[in-house]
């Protein structure tokens, strides 16, 4: 191993607060096709939510037009969104509003 003849400049500003683990969200949007019972079942069986929680989320989608169904790292949220698409639900991924 060679000895470095010069030390690298270390005046880089390492601002750790600029790279936090920013949470992302999966948002499911209302559509006129999917049956309410189906949406509840998907939230229950895929996310493991209770019947109450799944029903609340379904009603939020139905009445408010959308609901946040999961929050976490971006890669995980993309996996969830893909699964929602497999089920025929209309899901998007977004950075959680600060």
């Amino acid at each position: 191993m060679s000895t470095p003849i010069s030390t690298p400049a270390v005046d880089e500003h390492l601002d750790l607060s600029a790279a936090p683990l920013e949470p992302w969200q999966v948002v499911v949007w209302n559509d006129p096709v999917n049956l309410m019972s189906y949406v509840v079942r998907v939230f229950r069986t895929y996310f493991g939510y209770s019947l109450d929680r799944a029903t609340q989320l379904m009603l939020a989608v139905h009445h408010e037009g959308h609901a946040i169904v999961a929050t976490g790292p971006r890669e995980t949220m993309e996996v969830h969104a893909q699964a929602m698409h497999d089920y025929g639900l209309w899901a998007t991924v977004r950075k959680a509003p600060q």
Partner: protein
Amino acid sequence: MTTASVRLELAAIEGVHLAHLLDEFQDMLTADATENAGDPAIARLAPNPYPEDAEASRAFATATHDDLLDRRIAEAAVVRAALSGFDETQDVLDEQDALTAQPILIPAAEVDAWLRTLTALRLVLATRLGIVDEDDLDEDDPRRGVYDWLGYRLEGLIQSADELG
């Protein structure tokens, strides 16, 4: 572990019709990508999770789009295989035969494939019918009846599946 299953009773005319729909669905999914480009039904089956970020949406589509359609093809094939008993059934049935119910036993492990496939068929029909919100009811379009019938069968299947646990 018991061999749990969901029982679905389909009249012969329903089974024949569903088999036809699935054949068309599989043709659509296996069509050339260039043929499918811009098809709103394909777009609805594989939605864009980043509507406000063209670059991220391209990356996501590149990584997932074909796999998603492949999974749909595989699941549609599971449902289609369960309907093979209807293949011998004539397209022209007398009234009695047409309404004779045939039970189909769907193993628990295949229930999700059924639910997702029937849902996908309804999404495609809805796109073709131009159903964008709950009020878009064109009762005169014959496809509307097919759409409602699939919804009715799907609802029953969801109920049976929920009872299964």
